[in-house]
Structure formats: structure tokens, C-alpha cells
């Protein structure tokens, strides 16, 4: 089946012979394409208009910020209503059992994090304070910010559940920490 242009060389290595076929044209094209690509690519990014990683990032962040729906903080009345909404408390409980138990324990008695059932609050016990702490976190105390994992509504749900824990009796309550607070 060998083609006519096969030219056999006088090479013989342990019985292995060699043709001297010309390079396939498509292969040569690919070879030159690679070189041209390289010659254009490097200056395009280093000296030309190609964006550096930091520029790309700034653009991405700006675009995301522009596209973001305007955030309106839940009003006082919304927060009060949420605390009385059993379905929201139930949803909040679900999230709490998934994400918060590692530090606050399922019954809210506290372990790494503070006891959530007593009247004492380190960062304020009002519903708005709880929402704030969950949203932004208190990094120096180990409370992480949940705003990237939970939606504002979900955070209100969890806060409502946390507030509903007040006065319950956990199995191993952690000693009270922070100021006494009796706000709504």
C-alpha cells in the first residue's frame, strides 16, 4: 500500500528502515501556527491591550457590582413579622441545623460559640443585631460572615429561629457571655 513518493533511505537499524516522506502540509501549517501564535500572544498580554489578571479581576468585580440588584435592608416591621412567622422559623431551624450546630450546638446551648438561649448577648440581642452578626460575622471571635452562603431572607429566617430559642433549656448550657438584653 506504500505510496509512490515513499523514498526508502539506506538506514537499517536492527532491521528498522526509514522512509524520508515529506512533512504533511497540514502538520507544517500547525507548526507555523503555533510559532505565530506565540509571537503574537506574549506581546499582546505583556505590552499590548491584553488584560493582566488584576485588570480582568477589577472588570469582573465592577460588572458584578453593576448587575447586583439594589439591596434594601429589611425594615423593623419585617423583622418583627419574621419572628412571629412559624414557617420562617422552621426554615431557619433547617439552616441552623445544617450550618450552625458545629459551634452553637443543635439546641443552641453553645460550645465554641455562645449560648443562644439565655438573655445575654455579646453583640446585642435585638433581631437587627442578630441579623447583622450573621451577615457580617465577627471574625476576631471566630464567627464567620454568612452573606456569601445565605441570602438576606435566609439570614432573617435563621435569626428568627435564634430568637425563638430564648428561654429554652439546652442540655449543656454554656455560661452567659456579654450584656444582658431584653430587646425584641
Amino acid at each position, binding site marked *: 500500500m506504500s505510496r509512490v513518493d515513499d523514498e526508502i533511505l539506506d538506514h537499517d*537499524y*536492527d532491521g528498522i*528502515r526509514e522512509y524520508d516522506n515529506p*512533512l504533511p502540509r497540514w*502538520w507544517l501549517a500547525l507548526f507555523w501556527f503555533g510559532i505565530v501564535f506565540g509571537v503574537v500572544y506574549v506581546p499582546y*498580554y505583556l505590552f499590548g491591550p491584553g488584560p*493582566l489578571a488584576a485588570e480582568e479581576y477589577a472588570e469582573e468585580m465592577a460588572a458584578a457590582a453593576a448587575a447586583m440588584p439594589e439591596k434594601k435592608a429589611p425594615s423593623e416591621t419585617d423583622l418583627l413579622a419574621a419572628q412571629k412567622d412559624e414557617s420562617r422559623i422552621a426554615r431557619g431551624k433547617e439552616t441552623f441545623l445544617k450550618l450552625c450546630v458545629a459551634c452553637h450546638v443543635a439546641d443552641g446551648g453553645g460550645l*465554641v460559640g455562645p449560648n443562644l438561649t439565655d438573655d445575654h448577648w455579646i453583640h446585642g440581642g435585638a433581631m437587627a443585631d442578630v441579623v447583622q452578626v450573621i451577615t457580617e460575622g465577627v471574625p476576631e471571635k471566630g464567627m464567620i460572615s454568612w452573606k456569601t452562603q445565605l441570602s438576606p431572607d435566609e439570614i432573617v429566617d435563621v435569626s428568627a429561629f435564634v430568637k425563638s430559642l430564648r428561654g429554652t433549656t439546652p442540655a449543656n448550657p454554656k455560661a452567659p457571655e456579654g450584656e444582658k438584653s431584653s430587646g425584641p
Partner: protein
Amino acid sequence: MSTRLDTPSEAPSDAGLETFAYDDAIVRKFVVATVFWGAVGMLAGLLAALQLASHHFNLELPYITFGRLRPIHTNAVIFAFVGNAIFAGSYYATQRLLKTRLYSDTLSKIHFWGWQLIIVGAAVTFALGITVSKEYAELEWPLDVAVAVVWIIYAINFFGMLKTRREKHLYVAIWFFMASIIAVALLHVVNSLAVPVSLFKSYPVFAGVQDALVQWWYGHNAVAFFLTTPFLGLMYYYLPKAAERPVYSYRLSIIHFWSLIFIYMWAGPHHLLYTALPEWAQALGTAFSIMLIAPSWGGMINGLLTLRGAWDKLRTDPVLKFMVAAVTFYGMATFEGPMLSLKSVNSLSHYTNWTVAHVHAGALGWNGFLTFGMLYWLVPRLWRRKGQKPALHSVKLANAHFWLGLVGIGCYVLSMWAAGIAEGLMWKEFDADGRLVYGTWSDTLPTLFPMYVIRAVGGVLYITGLFMMVYNLVKTAQGAEKTDQIAQAAPLAAETAESEHKSHWHRLLEGRPLRFTIYTTIAVAIGGALEIIPSLLIESNVPTIASVKPYTPLELEGRDIYIAEGCYNCHSQMVRPFRAETERYGEYSKAGEFIYDRPFQFGSRRIGPDLHRVGGKYPDMWHYNHMLDPRSTSKGSVMPAYPWLFEDALDLSLTATKLRAFQIFNAPYTDDDVRDAEKNARAQAAQIAEGLTKQVATMPDIRDKQIVALIAYLQRLGTDIKAAEGSAAR
């Protein structure tokens, strides 16, 4: 030309022919080692695959947790399985291509036993957590020295044959073997440069971003010069031998050889795209990766087109089946690699299972299948039956092995492609409110689970095929003779000026091994030198950050525990400048943050989340609980538990020496810091332990346990930059 005969007595003694025997005994040894370590390495891989499907497979045994098992798997398949296959294949082929016996029987034996001892040493030290954590270069310094010594012995034994050869010109297979030997020596030595602090611990002379650049120059070119070029050498011998057809194109061999070895060495930075590596190096990495497609495919088409006129043999001959599939996988992998080096593709694929799919298409398809094809061809020739043509015990079984192996690779690669793309997309997915849909890491795991199961099934199929081969080869060898093949050839004639004149320049070069070696060395040295040396010397490549300070003695010990446990196998420490990453982890990583990181811990895979900004994110108690039982803090996590870190004593006997080593490099530790290293470490440990017992009175005191150091390190990670937000880079 030479004639080969079965017994020396039949050899005609006239015509100035010399009669000699090839050293086939050593090839047989390497063949057995190839098969043995192949089985070990692949079984280790299967166990690692199962561990990702279910953490129970870690068995809570420190020696085989994923972080220690993965290096055992990768080193066993690369350096033990493929390594022994290279030695077997190159020794068999080179003796015959040069018409000479191996240079020294003694060196051959030292080479063989030395390499096997290193492999055993590697397995034992990795299981014990003795590692430098640089991927595919994890060996600690005494074994690194041993590797260098054995490699030099291989080189002497190989290049010695060039001196005693009876064939004037070097065949293309020899070029590839030569380039491999030179390049691997260069890569290994530079990447292993380290300052020892004990027999089992050393720190690399490069730090942070520079260490990463050197490591991936090495890592990428270990793929090039250990897994690719030696195997092209094997392909160029065994494929035309098995097909009994001439090689398609001599000039293609020349062009793709030189372009391949030159360009490969530049492409390493494509492993570090979007990291803190200087952008000029990243751009070179991408550019040279695209340039690599044609040289790589030159090898593929020279292999495939050699089969013109022999395609019918493919139906019946398992050797050719394996080889054709191997070369095809080579073509696929060398196209996929450059695609993964494009920034846009890499931003999705990096850290995911896509990379795992890519390397296994290469390892199982190209290296595995070419080795199997070679073994099926070699074993009947190394274990000969008197008066019979070399033949396999069962061609049918070998064909079955082929199909089983192919389906196995299919399961593996397809499932990991799917898993990789799924992961990459999940990590980046935002909802309409601008929050990460998979903000909780473990939410991505249920999607991956079925893929991990399919991958493991693929592995089982592939390994089943391997054991079918073992049976087949054993049966083939049983009762056969183990003799050295006898050959005859005339010694090299003195050069005649006239014949030289007519030859093409490259043909002349093929007759001058020394010059060929020098040119090859230059070709492989340029790329690395032009990327690494400027990055070491020019300060602007790593802009200083004033607030970045060296680790405390306890944190340094914790970091060494992190390294010993192989945490880098699952956790990166390199936040890339993407919204999806900065939202999830925090500020993206800067080059100046890593100047005291020896070795760097960027990682290459995110089986778990990135840890560069984990410092201060969780309280100490969280880490305590998480390391003891990862599922208690992260539901559904696949991370192994580390109970031994809570039992094993924290060893501070080397801490002062370690600080002194860092003092030699660039860390501004004072002599007092060195003297008080142990005292300071104990003080910080006590502080952390007391903090924990204060929170929960029933807590055991961990001040002298390893876990306390690990917590100290994790809490420090990525925090220095926060200390001076705003006034950071100067």
C-alpha cells in the same frame, strides 16, 4: 550489516565480524520489576480513588490516608512502573540499535538494584509522612541523592554504549533516550536543591513563587522527559519492529525531535496560570504550550503512518492494538494539554478533576498501553523456546486485556471529565442575588460521588486487565530459556572524508554522539534558564509586602505537619483573582505573601477548599473538632480524620535548627529567636491550649500534641496581609 544467530557456534568467523552477546538478563529483571510495580502502583491508585468516594477507605490509618497515599501512587506508577519500563525497553533496544552489549554488567546491576531500593525507600518514607511535598519530587534529600547517583549510573551505562557501538549513526530512538537522560538529570538536581536540617527533613533553597516556578518547570518536564520522550524512543523501536514496516518519515523525526525537546522546557508555567507567578512567565507558558501541539503530533503521525500497509495486522495482533491506541491517546493528551493551558479554559479546569482526567488519559493510555504492547512483544523474545518462533501464551487473552483496558480508560476519563467540568462550574456559580450557589463546599460533593464510583470501576477494569497480562506473561515465560542473545557486527570503520562530504548535516550529527549530546543539552537548558534565572534575580517579580513576617517556631512546626500529612494533595493555598474565589475565600493571593514558604504549598487540586485565607476564619475550637472528626463541622466532607495528631507528641527538638536554616535563607530571625525557639513554641502552644480549655472545661490539654502546632499554622495562614491592609505593596 549484522546477522543474528541463535548460537555462537554457528557464527561465521570471517569478514571481520565480531561476535558478542546482548545483556538480556538485566532486561528480564527490569521487565519483572515493571510488572510488579505496575500492579502495586495501580492498586494504590485504586485505593486512593475509593477514598475520594468514601472517607471510610482511609481506615483512620495514618500511613495510608489520602494525603500520604497519593504520592505513593503517583511515584509508584511514574518512577517504578514507567521507570522500570523505560530501563527495560531502552536497554533492550539500544544494545540492538548500536550493536553492542551494555557498557558494564556491574553498572547494570547497581542500576537495577539501586532503583528498586529507592522505590522501597520512597514507599516507606511517604507512608511515614517523610516528604518534601513537591509533586512527583516528594523524596527527602538522602533518597534524592540516591536517585541522582543511580541516574548517573544509567547515564554512564547508556552513553558508554555510544563509545563501544558498532553502528555509526544513532537512530531516532537513541536521540530520545539521550535527551531524556540529560533533561531528567538537570530537572532532578535543580528542583531538589535543599538545605537539610536532619536526615529526614530539608528545606528547598527556593521559596514561594520561585519555588513554584522551579517545581512546575520540573513537574511539567517530568511529564515531558520521563513520561513522553523516553516513550517516544520506545515507540520508535517497538512499533516498527512489531509492524515490520519502515518508519514513515526520517525528516519528520528530526524536526519533531528538536522542536519538542526545545519547546517543552518553556511550558511549565501553564501549571500556574492566574496565580501570583509573574505574568510574563505565565504568558510564555501558554505560548509555548500552543507551540507544542505540532511537535507532539509529529511523533503521533510518525507512529501511526508507520502502520500504513500493516493496518490489517491490527485485527489480530494485540501488540499493535496496544501501540496504536497508546499513540492515539498520546495525540489526544497532547492536544488537550495545550487547550488546558489557555487562560479561559484553565480558569475553569485548574484545581478540578479535569486535570486528573487529562493526566490519566496520558498515563493509562499512552504510558500504560505502550508498556503493555512492548511487554507482549518483548517477553516471548526474552524468554525464548528452543526451536520455536517467539509467541505469546495466549493472543486471545491479550486481546481481551486490550478491550478491558480500553473500557477501563473510557470509564475513568469520561467520569473525571464530567466531574471536573461540573466542579469548575459549581465553584463559579452565582445566583441572582450575587451569592455563591455552592457557598458551602460540601454541597458540591453529592454531584461528584457517582463520578468517583464510575472512576473506581474503570480502575478495577484496567487493573483486571493488568493481572490477565501478568498471567499471560508468566505462562509465556514458564519453561523457556533465559539466555543472552548472540549477535555479530563489524566494528566501526575509520571515517572516510569522502563519505562524510555527501551527507546531510543532521546525518553527520547522528554519527557524532558527543556533539549531539551537547546540542541536546543546550536545547533543553534554554527554556528553564530563561524563565527561572530572571525570576530569581529581578526583584520586581516578587513585590515585597512589609507586613509579611516569618512564621513563629510553633507555626513552622505546624506547617511541617501540614506538609507531612500531605494536606496539599487536597487543599490549594492560592486564591486566584476571580470573583468566585475572592467571594468564597477572601483577597486573592499575592507573590510577596509567600517569601518564607519553603516549600511552597500552592497545591494543584481542590478536593477540599483553598486554605490560603483560612487563618482567623474559624475559631481554634472549630479546627480542633474538624481535624478530629471532619464531619462534625462540615457535613458530608470526604476528609479523613486525623486522630493521631491528638495523641502524638509535638517534637520540638529540631525547631531551633529549622529556624537557623531559615536564617541562612532570608528570614529575619534573630539569634535570640533561634536560641529561644523551643521556649517560644511552648509558650504559644500553651496559649492556644488554654484558650480551648477556657471555652470548654472538659477539653483535654493539647499543649504538647501535634494538633496544637497545626492549629497555630492554620490560624496564621494568609493573615499577614490583613495586618497592613491598604499600605500593602510597595
